[in-house]
């Protein structure tokens, strides 16, 4: 062959083989909503109030409102201030968001009256660094935190308990699980709760399931919060999801009425993915979701595209839009669990870049699911980060002196809590007459990485046990008793303290988590007071000393040794 037409340079070949070229990218198509946030087809901001009611919203008269417009106009927007704040030029609001001298309180006051198009108009003026500046100030809770996924490809409860314990010890404030085989849920939810309370007393747990079962596990006190309550930005997609803003608002009250913390879930790209974006940009539709959540009175929102991240990730400026949607959630005074929870890219560099707009300014939960199990075991279809990234994450925290919610923990401590979690679960299963956990399984749990490292469970017996948990009406209180009876007094005490929290309702307030001392920390007693350099949350003191530690650091005193 002598043709040179198809010959490629060696360099092109090398570039062609880079992981980033396995990712998919598409051109924008704004007419159909396949566009991140800059679209000529989004409505212009407008608002008109008559007789105490909003009668025009973003160019649409009340008679033409779809149900999202209606719900937002009647529940989300402050009628008293709407006309006033919407009249402020967008550029002034955008600058105030970035300006440290403008207080968070003033900006949330303005935010309460803005229409979706106006909010979009404001954030469109901001570049990604400005978005991060604003996020630093607008995040509801002063102290940033992180959330983990703790799942098992085999739904193995021992694995979930051990990984929950390790995750809690590494610093995650919330742990979330879900199932391959849904019927396993009661056992895995118990394992998550027991393991979590071994790792660090006060960690909050969740099991993502269909609404009725998720609510039931919550009502029984086997889980502590709920999150997978999806909302969408267009009426047709909302209806396709078999819900309306009113049904979701009712569900929010149902959770609160049982003392259970809850947040909604939404994200850019879901509507266009389902083919019903009604010609609006992804961010405009997501802002409608955020205002819908606000209007429902839910304390928080998981957003940042979530399971549709491949869509904004493929269009120009998409990741900027994702950063902007997290900002808007925070600006609307909601707790924000900011994505970074789904497999995003083949490129490690791109995965990191996608993360920084949340990690650097800090959010209420930087990841709404950092995979604290290997991604192969991640039953949420894989996260942007997994167990292999722990040391990288810790190093980035140390390099840039930012708090991403995690810390390096020495192996002996990790092995110790993993063993204790597996032992505690073994005891709880024995007390509750559930299928036996063998010593061999406990031993495996201590040293395992993924589900393949554990002995096989008798799935049939486990499923019968899971059913009996539901039939017998086992509650969180039964777990406390079982732990206490079997000598795990401290774990029992931790769990009882978490359960007691639902009597006080303190965890229902915005951005609430529990500290190591079981003190609820929310946007009320830990309100973000960022006001420029030297203020707000600063990584210093004891916490900074913690984060200086890595797996391998050469000792200054004796350079022939390492400290860790």
């Amino acid at each position, binding site marked *: 062959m002598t043709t040179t037409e198809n010959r490629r340079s060696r360099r092109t070949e090398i570039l062609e083989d880079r992981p980033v070229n396995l990712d998919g990218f598409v051109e924008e198509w704004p007419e159909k909503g396949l566009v991140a946030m800059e679209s000529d087809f989004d409505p212009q901001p407008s608002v008109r109030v008559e007789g105490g009611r909003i009668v025009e919203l973003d160019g649409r008269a009340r008679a033409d409102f779809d149900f999202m417009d209606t719900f937002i106009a009647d529940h989300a927007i402050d009628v008293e201030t709407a006309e006033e704040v919407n009249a402020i030029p967008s550029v002034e609001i955008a600058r105030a968001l970035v300006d440290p001298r403008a207080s968070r309180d003033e900006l949330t006051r303005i935010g309460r009256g803005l229409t979706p198009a106006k909010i979009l108009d404001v954030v469109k003026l901001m570049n990604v660094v400005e978005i991060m500046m604003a996020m630093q100030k607008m995040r509801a809770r002063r102290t940033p935190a992180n959330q983990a996924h703790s799942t098992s490809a085999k739904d193995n409860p021992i694995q979930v308990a051990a990984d929950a314990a390790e995750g809690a010890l590494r610093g995650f404030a919330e742990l979330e699980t879900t199932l391959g085989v849904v019927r396993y849920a009661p056992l895995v939810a118990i394992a998550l709760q027991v393991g979590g309370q071994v790792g660090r007393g006060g960690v909050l747990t969740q099991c993502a399931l269909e609404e009725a079962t998720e609510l039931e596990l919550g009502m029984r006190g086997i889980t502590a919060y709920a999150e997978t309550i999806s909302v969408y930005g267009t009426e047709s997609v909302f209806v396709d999801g078999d819900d309306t803003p009113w049904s979701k608002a009712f569900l929010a009250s149902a959770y609160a009425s049982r003392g259970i913390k809850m947040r909604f879930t939404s994200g850019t790209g879901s509507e266009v993915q389902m083919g019903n974006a009604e010609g609006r940009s992804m961010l405009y539709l997501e802002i409608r979701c955020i205002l819908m959540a606000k209007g429902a009175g839910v304390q928080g929102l998981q957003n940042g595209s979530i399971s549709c991240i491949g869509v904004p990730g493929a269009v120009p400026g998409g990741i900027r839009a994702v950063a902007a949607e997290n900002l808007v959630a925070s600006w609307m005074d909601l707790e924000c669990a900011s994505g970074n929870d789904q497999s995003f890219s083949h490129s490690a560099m791109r995965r990191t870049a996608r993360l920084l707009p949340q990690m650097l300014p800090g959010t209420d939960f930087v990841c709404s699911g950092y995979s604290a199990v290997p991604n192969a075991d991640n039953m949420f279809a894989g996260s942007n980060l997994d167990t292999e990234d722990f040391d990288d994450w810790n190093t980035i925290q140390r390099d840039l002196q930012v708090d991403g919610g995690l810390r390096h923990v020495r192996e002996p401590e990790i092995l110790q809590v993993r063993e204790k979690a597996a032992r505690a679960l073994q005891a709880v299963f*024995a*007390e509750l*007459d559930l*299928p*036996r956990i063998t010593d061999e399984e406990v031993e495996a749990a201590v040293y395992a990485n993924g589900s393949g490292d554990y002995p096989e469970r*008798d*799935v*049939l017996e486990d*499923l019968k046990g899971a059913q009996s948990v539901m039939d017998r009406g086992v509650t969180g209180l039964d777990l406390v008793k079982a732990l206490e009876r079997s000598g795990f007094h401290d774990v029992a005490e931790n769990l009882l303290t978490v359960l007691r929290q639902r009597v006080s309702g303190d965890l229902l307030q915005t951005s609430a988590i529990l500290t190591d001392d079981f003190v609820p920390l929310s946007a009320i007693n830990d309100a973000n007071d960022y006001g420029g350099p030297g203020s707000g949350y600063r990584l210093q003191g004891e916490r900074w000393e913690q984060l200086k530690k890595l797996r391998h650091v050469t000792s200054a005193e004796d350079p022939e040794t390492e400290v860790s």
Partner: protein
Amino acid sequence: MTRRLVVGVDIGNSTTEACVAAVSGTSVEYLGTALTHTTGVKGTPDNTDGAVAAVRRALDRAGHTESEVETVLLNEATPVISGLAMETISETIITESTMIGHNPATPGGEGLGVGTTVAIDALSGASGPTIAVVGPGWDFDDVATELNAATDRGLEVVAAVLAHDDAVLVVNRLRAPIPVVDEVGAVEKVPLGMRAAVEVAPPGRTIRTLSDSYGLASVFELDPDQTKHVSPVARALTGNRSAVVVRTPSGDVTDRRIPVGTLTLRGAGKTLQVDVDAGAEAIMEVLGRVQPLDDATGEAGTHVGGMLAQVRDTMTDVTGQPAAEIRIRDVLAVDTFVPKEVRGGLAGEVAPENAVALAAMVRTSRSRMQVVADEVAAALGCRAEIGGVEGEMAVRGALTTPGTAIPIAVLDLGGGSTDAALLDRDGVSSAVHVAGAGELVTKLIGSELALDDREQAEAVKRYPLAKVESFFHVRHEDGTVQFFPEPLPSHVFARVVTMTPEGPAPVATRHSVDHVRRVRREAKRKVFAVNAVRALQQVAPGGSLRMLDFVVLLGGSALDFEIPDLIADALAGYGVVCGIGNVHGSEGPRNAVASGLVDAHVAGA
């Protein structure tokens, strides 16, 4: 007279039952019962947790608290451990790729084609009757084009063998149809340039020529000696709808026995040996000659040896008794078959190979129930005592079944062992445990149906079968049809299902309902009907079942929908009244021992 709260607890192999009663004087009022899994091996201190849980749960149901309990009564439980093993004892081997005997779902064409094997891309050089051999990667359109072209050139293509599932597609595109066998995964191993025959029967029929020794002799012009040699081939192909036979210089199909070890049985002053590959009948016959069995050992280094050693080790772990003191007191051997891939096969042919399943049972004299009693007493803050031997208690409980009288025998159909006990007219009771029960049935069903999921095997054992014929109706195994107002879930559509309480559950099999049902009933019969007779013979006066009047079935398997009938059938010839226990006229076959303990306690007080 004071009212005392007494709880009887029966620790069984797999379940622990508790029964709460209020006792005043000699009157007993039963207040509530509960059932939990037995924790640890029966008769060991690990049982405490399960016993305490069962007591608490029964109290809960009866509306009483721990502090009110006066006495907990436990049974004297003999630790019984059963082990299961299954060994394949036959093997089919094809050498030199002589034969393709699998049953593709859709072969093509019909009839017999005899010729020389030639690769499809070498057809242009071929002559005479030819069988085309087509490898993977060939598209069906291209195969048909090639074959048509060869025929047009005048080549006599009489049959074809294909790698892919393309037979119907190819035949539909040929100008003259020929028999075609497809889905031959290892088609590249078909010897080329050899005389061969391909036969395909019409739908619903089986082949005639290649499954017959003289048919093969005619096709390949064999002499009588050679014909003897090919008869295994004919046998192996019987019942197939399609087949390929290639005549090679020393090709063969053999069926050989696999030595899997020797079982040594000692008892009645004798020590006898039997090869496990001799089959169940031979093993049980030898066992009968050494009754009562003192011990059984397997030849070291063989599978049988390994299995028996493992049972012994487990017993050592739980009792602390040295391995040398542990005795295997019973063995049940059952003939079964296991579908296995044929060695040397080209298309993943599967043959049902013979296998022997063995259940072995160990007992120890060293029960540690006193430790359990002490721990239960400490946990509940009450008295706990050993109230009686379980066999006697079971009989006593069974006697409360309306319509029974002494002499009475009970059969407790458990998970690991089948137990029998007898109370004779003199008030003397005796009891026996024999190896093999519900778990062995599950294993037989699982292996014969090649279910790799124990949950499904368990479901086949427990629930009747049906075929889902549409989204709105099923046909039960007895032929009756049941309609449903709401559509059935889509994952059961067109499948053989078990009718579980939660609804139909699919069975991963291509077998018919009839076949699955036959396997299920046969497995139950081979274990429970056989063991019922074996166990009762050991307690019956003079070993004669005719001396028994009443036999009461107890335990979880007594609730099975057909096992009681199978046992009743097996006992029918001996003039025995056999039925399901109904303890206190209300508890069914459950709680006999637990309530027997309470009754004995009251009678003795």
